[in-house]
């Protein structure tokens, strides 16, 4: 995991360094186009200050080691350390992603079971089709349309994660309620795209399990259908639910980004887009790295959970007698 993260951080640094020029050059060009003259000494000073004149690897080293002490570099655009610019955006991203995953589970689980036990029925077809529809509708458009209807029908204020009066306020019951009121739109929007895949995989897994001989044996011995389903096949597919976090998480985070941009949520999405467009490299890089870390850690957690839940999976290569 650590080497993976190192490699990821390096790739990200290469990517954000790739565009020709740096933020200072863009900034100078902007100032000059406005007719302001820039003192070359000042540029030189700034360049030195931010280490932009140093070789690539040195810059990378400074950036990467900064992470261990909580120094993520400096945002040129906001003229603040990245840490302060980010604020609690990362946390909000994590919260939105977690709730979305739980939402996806809550939707996909019953539908998957129904589809598997009622294979090729109208319900199966209908629900599967709905799932696919969720997959096919681009997130951002669904977000726009839902935003519109939420406003028309429920009078929820447009965009954001809370009513404007609660912004920059300490947490309170009112703020919490307001967040909940706003949260369901992004959660539903992001969830729809992942749900279809989840339903398909759960259905396939459960079907495989239901075809096995022990199910037939159980049926022959007169086990009640519900017990027969709950006791073994379902527990087997539960494992897969945990294992699936790995494939769900990247798509949830991707969806969260674009939805956040459309809904202008105070998460990482809008700021990342902005930073990428204005070449605010440290800010963009930090966001990218945090999103990648989020995915990797999520996968690690799912692996650990799986090893804990499923006795057949061992973390260490123990001899099987």
């Amino acid at each position, binding site marked *: 995991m650590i080497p993976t993260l190192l490699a990821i951080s390096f790739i990200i640094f290469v990517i954000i360094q790739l565009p020709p020029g740096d933020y200072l050059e863009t900034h100078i060009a902007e100032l000059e186009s406005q007719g302001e003259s820039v003192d070359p000494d000042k540029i030189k000073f700034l360049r030195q200050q931010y280490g932009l004149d140093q070789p690539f690897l040195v810059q990378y080293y400074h950036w990467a080691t900064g992470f261990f002490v909580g120094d993520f570099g400096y945002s040129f655009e906001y003229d603040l350390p990245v840490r302060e610019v980010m604020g609690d955006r990362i946390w909000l991203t994590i919260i939105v992603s977690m709730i979305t995953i739980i939402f996806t589970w809550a939707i996909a689980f019953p539908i998957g079971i129904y589809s598997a036990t009622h294979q090729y029925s109208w319900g199966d077809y209908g629900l599967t089709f709905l799932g*696919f529809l969720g997959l096919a509708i681009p997130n951002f458009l669904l977000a726009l349309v839902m935003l519109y209807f939420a406003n028309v029908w429920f009078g929820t204020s447009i965009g954001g994660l809370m009513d404007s009066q609660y912004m920059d306020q300490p947490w309170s019951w009112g703020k919490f309620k307001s967040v909940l009121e706003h949260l369901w739109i992004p959660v539903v929007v992001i969830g729809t795209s992942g749900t279809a895949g989840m339903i398909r995989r759960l259905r396939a897994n459960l079907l495989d399990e239901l075809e096995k001989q022990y199910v037939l044996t159980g049926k022959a011995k007169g086990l009640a259908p519900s017990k027969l389903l709950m006791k073994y096949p379902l527990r087997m597919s539960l494992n897969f639910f945990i294992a699936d976090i790995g494939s769900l998480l990247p798509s949830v985070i991707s969806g969260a980004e674009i939805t956040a941009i459309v809904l202008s949520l105070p998460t990482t999405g809008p700021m990342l887009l902005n930073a*990428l467009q204005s070449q605010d490299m440290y800010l963009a890089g930090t966001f*990218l790295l945090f999103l990648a870390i989020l995915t990797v850690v999520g996968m690690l957690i799912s692996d650990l959970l799986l090893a804990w839940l499923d006795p057949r999976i061992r973390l260490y290569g123990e001899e099987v007698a």
Partner: protein
Amino acid sequence: MSTNQPDTSHTRHYISTAKFDPHSAERLTAEQEKYFFASRRQLMWWKLKRHKLAVFSGAILLIMYASTLVSELISPYNLHTRHTEYIYAPPQQVHFFHDGTFVGPFVYGYDYQLNMENLKREYTENFQKVHPLRFFCSGDEYQFWGLFEADFHFFCPDENATFFVFGTDRLGRDVFSRIIYGARISLLIGLGGIIVSLFLGLLLGGLAGYYGGWIDSSVQRTIEIIRSFPELPLWMALSAILPVTWSPILVFFGITIILALLDWTGLARAVRSKLLALREEDYCTAAKLMGAKPGRIISRHLLPGFSSHIIASATLSIPGMILGETALSFLGLGLRPPITSWGVLLNEAQNINVVALYPWLILPVLPVIVIILAFNFFGDGLRDAADPYK
């Protein structure tokens, strides 16, 4: 000697003159014969045919791809034709009956008026102006495939009238025509992306699976790293670094490659695991002993063994790329005008005002949904058909 010995003096040695048929005991019916001797491709086709939804989706895909060949003919207007008197005009409905009499397909003309209170453009149908549609007619001139001038369209508006089935955008361009033209880019980018990703996946997966060892583990690590990136943010970052000075066509290729760069991992994994199993087969050893080179063994003996599987999973990963391009262009990081894809069209529908005031501008999402669904169902059917154990 013994009395049990059969008396051979009576029975003669007998040979039947009829022709011997070894299958006489279990003769195959014509149908069975057809099935048992069918080629792999034939079997797949039969299986696919039973999957009605997949066949239907396949037909839709074919139609949509075929339409990109004749976009100029299908669309009533050109990609960039502007109608300055009809800015943000709502869709015109096609009617058949006027005043109780049948006139064939026609539209009512628009009366335009600027609401001075909120400065909204208001278009009302004028029931006096009846404009029947013309079919197989001459309309806007265009360069067919960039080769020769033509002005033939399948249908066009009446002379001095307009026909906007899906309304117009902020420059007064016909949305329907733009959707038809946008299909070219949107569908092409999916195909182009999958070709690049197939190439990468086959090459790297093939190398990893056939040679194993350090090549395998380094490819595996690379795949792991790429897969742990959330796709969209990385796509965003990569497309943000495409230089602004690039021409739109270069950007198009750049985006295609970016889409493919994150997509090949799934294919490479599938290829690798299959190859790992297949390279131990006897026929592979035989080929090796006869002096075949690794490239030949992989491409000639191993890959055909699961090519149908590869095609199925490639089909399933095209929609992701189309959606990716749409999302990137929507954010303004993807393709740039004058290249027009469905995502570029949706870029106009970026804020909630559009949904509220000009809802027809989000219509380009319809073909996106249709194509994604079609690719998914078709790919599913193909995958089932490619599975010999079902």
